[in-house]
């Protein structure tokens, strides 16, 4: 299964961390993170930090749907951030959509893909900031369960619009928390499992309900996690962090299982000055 991702750290000057993420060739979301910062008295909590997520669509004023995404993202981020570490402070996310969320062009996103991309983008911005203590790294993918001709189930990661595919029986987005350390030898598989911290798995047709959801989602999320680690590695070791190009993505996908020895060197130097300002 091939995952085409576009992820990069941004350099917005007035916030603590910012990053872009997208499934496909172009970034779909830009998230900025400020925190821990001063909080309004009304929103202050005495023993834990307050998380605020604002989702802003590309077109139009933010409406009910944006509010819904914001509430879900807040829940997911609470699993990732160590809340007790900074009481009486605020961690403020702003998720800006870079593509129209509802359009009739060929790039329509379904809501699971949107959710997965937003979660990954928020995680990346937390990694970029480095100022918020985290329990682990949450990566999310959207999955659909498809009935094949021989009545067997197959799980497809990153499906297209599920309503059009008549063989889809269930869809959803899964978010996994990765926090185990790397195995010492690259031949050892990572032993600890990564728990699923959030899902909205739902069945589109009656009569197919069961609780299994396959391993494909976790494998795909792990690939995303490895890409994120590579991005952070690049940033820390080389002191330049140009956006990972698609060319790099295909080579890194094949090396995803050997993430320890894959150290990808980027040849784009033009973003040097931008990164030096941090």
């Amino acid at each position, binding site marked *: 299964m091939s995952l085409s991702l576009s992820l990069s750290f941004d350099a*917005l*000057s*007035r*916030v603590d961390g*910012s990053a872009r993420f997208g499934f496909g*060739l*172009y970034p779909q979301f*830009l998230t*900025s993170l*400020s925190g821990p*910062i*001063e909080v*309004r008295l009304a929103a202050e909590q005495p023993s834990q930090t307050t998380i605020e997520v*604002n989702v*802003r669509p*590309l*077109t*139009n*004023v933010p409406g009910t749907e944006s509010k819904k995404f914001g509430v879900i993202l807040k829940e997911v981020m609470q699993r990732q951030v160590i809340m007790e570490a900074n009481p009486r402070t605020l961690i*403020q996310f*702003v998720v*800006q959509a*870079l*593509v*129209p969320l509802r359009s009739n*062009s060929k790039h329509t996103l379904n809501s699971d893909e949107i959710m997965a991309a937003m979660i990954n983008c928020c995680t990346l911005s937390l990694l970029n900031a480095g100022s918020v203590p985290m329990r682990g790294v949450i990566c999310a993918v959207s999955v659909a369960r498809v009935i094949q001709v021989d009545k067997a189930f197959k799980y497809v990661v990153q499906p297209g619009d599920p309503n059009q595919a008549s063989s889809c029986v269930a869809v959803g987005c899964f978010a996994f928390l990765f926090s185990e350390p790397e195995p010492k030898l690259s031949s050892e598989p990572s032993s600890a499992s990564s728990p699923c911290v959030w899902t909205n798995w739902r069945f589109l047709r009656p009569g197919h309900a069961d609780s299994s959801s396959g391993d494909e989602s976790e494998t795909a999320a792990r690939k995303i996690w490895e890409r994120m680690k590579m991005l952070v590695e690049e940033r820390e070791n080389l002191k330049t962090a140009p956006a990972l190009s698609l060319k790099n993505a295909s080579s890194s996908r094949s090396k995803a299982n050997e993430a320890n020895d894959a150290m990808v060197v980027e040849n784009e130097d033009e973003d040097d000055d931008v990164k030096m*300002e941090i």
Partner: protein
Amino acid sequence: MRPPSPSIPEKEFLFSALKQGLRLDSRDFLETRPVTLNFGPELGWVECSLGKTRVLCQVDAKMVKPPPERPFEGFITIHSELSPMASSEYELGRPSEEEVTITRMLDKVIRRSDVVDKESLCIQAAQRVWHLRINVHCLADSGNLLDCACLASLVALKHFRKPDVEVIGEEVIVHPPTSRAPLPLSLHHTPYCFTFAFFFDTSIPPVLDPNLLEQRLNGGLISIALNSQRELCVVQKSGGVPLEPADVLNIVNVAVQKAKDLDAFVEARLREDWAGRKVEVR
């Protein structure tokens, strides 16, 4: 959340540097920060940056029924709201002074100065017109958000293409971009906005394109919007230290020259971007 004011050492340092004719980022007094324009995959999407200040602008068009009092024209709405991404001092739902200034200035520069030919947006009189929506998102506020926002909206309007529409009798056919090439908007002129900051100490000449510190410590701001044909669209000076008429004329002359340069740059970037897109003519 209120921003912390610049500290007294910063204030004194800035003023003494300016008195000696030096700007803290080593620019000339009348030099803008480097402008970069990045275009997205869709037409009408542009991210403009003026140094560290960044604004994203996207234009899209919807077909709607026109209001009865103006049946032969399309209309434009501009949506610009400052989010905490631009800076954590901006709160959602509470318009700050900066946000009000940007909204009003964008309205004056783009709508009231008639940049877009509204009659060309009409498809069928009194029944269907194009409603253009300009969405401006301020990504980072490092001083002079206003100029950046105006530039981004203008370039997005120039970059945008509307679908080709054919009216046969009563029937309206909208051709998708795959079958007929979309058309550019018909623009009357292209105004660019330049903001100058001046200070309480009147011996310091005005500076063009103030950065964050200069904007915080200013004694007044004057914004001039004009096009490269030397036509003034908007002159806005809201409060601040009084200026001599001679100073204002000097500023206008400087802005005229900058507008020409900026126009050449924008046209070159648009051409470059257009050449990079695969356009098939059958």
